[in-house]
């Protein structure tokens, strides 16, 4: 691991100032669970690491029935996963948080870090000069690609590794971004970019911008939500495919549903047409099978990942049946 300056600002303004002046050469650091691996593997050779953990007032979970949920960027995954208010009102976040990594990593990793973590692609993580690192080629495209994307790919074929992002997308959460030019609040869907727009970054964050808070609207009465994650290694792993759903139904008939997918695309993914086609549908295995049989039939699968198409259909069916029955 390269030696670096460890910068420990105590306010967001200070942090943002350092990042705006030398953002490209500065790595944002909080829980360290991902950032330290990137440093150890020499993916990052930055000589400045900016620690956010000394900034007061970024670690909180606050909930009330009128304003909904607010989570500070420095809240740890285990704090989110063990919050009784989140469990009661946003089961999807509760389930997603407890599916993330191992207890030790959940104790260390933060919400902001989980949303901004870098992809797990083995070519990106190892010694390959791939597109995401500024090289000219995606080695997964014609190489080993069983964990790579089936939609949204090209010229790079990563999947986004965050579970929290999928859960928050299904909830239409908003992200508050701090910069010294002012704060802005955007839908979480707009935080992420596809490789066709920016092959070297997963988010739109510019140097000087820091994720500060996540906001989720108050829960609607009668709503149910959940998260299902398929892993190659059951104990703990990144998602091969994951599905999160927020569903409002009456007597087994869907009023409306919002579904988000992980493990299939370079960003947390949603299919508006699927959500629409599921409204007024009675939830049972046959009905769902009919509605889901063409889901991702337009996927551009690679040589080793076509299995993800039936997997994502079946996980979606399994989740919806569980939530409604």
């Amino acid at each position, binding site marked *: 691991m*390269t*030696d*670096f300056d460890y910068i420990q600002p105590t306010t967001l303004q200070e942090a943002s100032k350092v990042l705006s002046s030398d953002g490209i050469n500065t790595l944002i650091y909080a829980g360290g669970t991902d950032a330290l*691996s990137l440093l150890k593997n020499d993916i990052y050779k930055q000589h400045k690491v900016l620690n956010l953990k000394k900034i007061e007032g970024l670690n909180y979970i606050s909930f009330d029935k009128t304003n909904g949920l607010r989570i500070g960027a420095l809240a740890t995954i285990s704090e989110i996963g063990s919050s009784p208010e989140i469990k009661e009102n946003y089961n999807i976040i509760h389930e997603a948080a*407890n599916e993330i990594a191992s*207890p030790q*990593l959940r104790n260390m990793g933060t919400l902001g870090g989980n949303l901004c973590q870098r992809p797990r692609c083995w070519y990106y993580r190892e010694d390959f000069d791939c597109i995401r690192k500024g090289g000219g080629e995606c080695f997964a495209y014609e190489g080993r690609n069983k964990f790579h994307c089936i939609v949204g790919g090209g010229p790079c074929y990563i999947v986004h590794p965050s579970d929290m992002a999928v859960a928050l997308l299904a909830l239409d959460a908003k992200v508050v971004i701090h910069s010294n030019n002012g704060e802005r609040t955007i839908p979480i869907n707009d935080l992420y970019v596809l490789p066709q727009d920016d092959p070297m970054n997963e988010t739109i964050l510019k140097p000087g911008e820091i994720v500060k808070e996540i906001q989720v609207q108050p829960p609607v009465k009668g709503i149910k939500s959940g998260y299902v994650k398929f892993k190659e290694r059951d104990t703990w792993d990144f998602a091969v495919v994951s599905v999160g759903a927020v569903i409002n139904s009456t007597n087994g008939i869907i009023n409306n549903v919002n579904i988000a997918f992980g493990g299939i695309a370079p960003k947390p993914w949603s299919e508006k047409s699927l959500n629409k086609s599921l409204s007024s549908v009675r939830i049972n295995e046959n009905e769902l099978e009919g509605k889901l049989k063409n889901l991702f039939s337009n996927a551009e699968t690679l040589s080793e990942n076509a299995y993800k198409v039936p997997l994502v259909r079946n996980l979606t069916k399994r989740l919806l049946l569980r939530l409604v029955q």
Partner: protein
Amino acid sequence: MKEEKEKKEISRREFLGKAGTGVAGSYFILSSLKQAEAVAKENPLQPPETYFGNIQVQLTVNGVKHKVRVHTNTTLVELLRDRLSLTGTKVVCNHGECGGCTVVIDKKAVYSCQMLALDADGKDVTTIEGLLKGEELHKVQQAFIDKDGLQCGFCTPGQIMSAYALLLNNPDPSEEEIKTAMAGNICRCSAYPKIKESVAEAARLLKA
């Protein structure tokens, strides 16, 4: 307690003897271990001061306050092992994936290989050495011996620290809760059923 421990050791040796293989090998390892211990006493293996860097951190480890100097890129496990000579904590994968380096900070299990020493500034760290009271084993350690919760034993300090953290927060865990809490510790000998039994036994011992 002590008698039981001796009994266990004898039965292991008897097993090696009966198995007939590896006897010569284990004698060799035992004798070279003794030699290594003797050498270490004469010549404690301490790297030069400059190896440790020039940024000061203050932390409490197993109840003892330390003021030490580190590099920015020194990890907590490097500080524990190389600087404080607490080698019970193991570095195995060094990537926060296996749990061999698990220590407890603020009642929570964390990977000490995946944490900068600088971030331990002001923290209260408990390592496997901190569980021992003089010669007396902690009940979690005793449970791992009683229930044979190990084979080669290399992952065991990490396993015990995860179990210790679980029982600090949840003295009466269900089987499922034990499974979840121990998920971050890999045992390549696959002693998992015995590890689960050991954690349940530790909970029983601590309540008694």
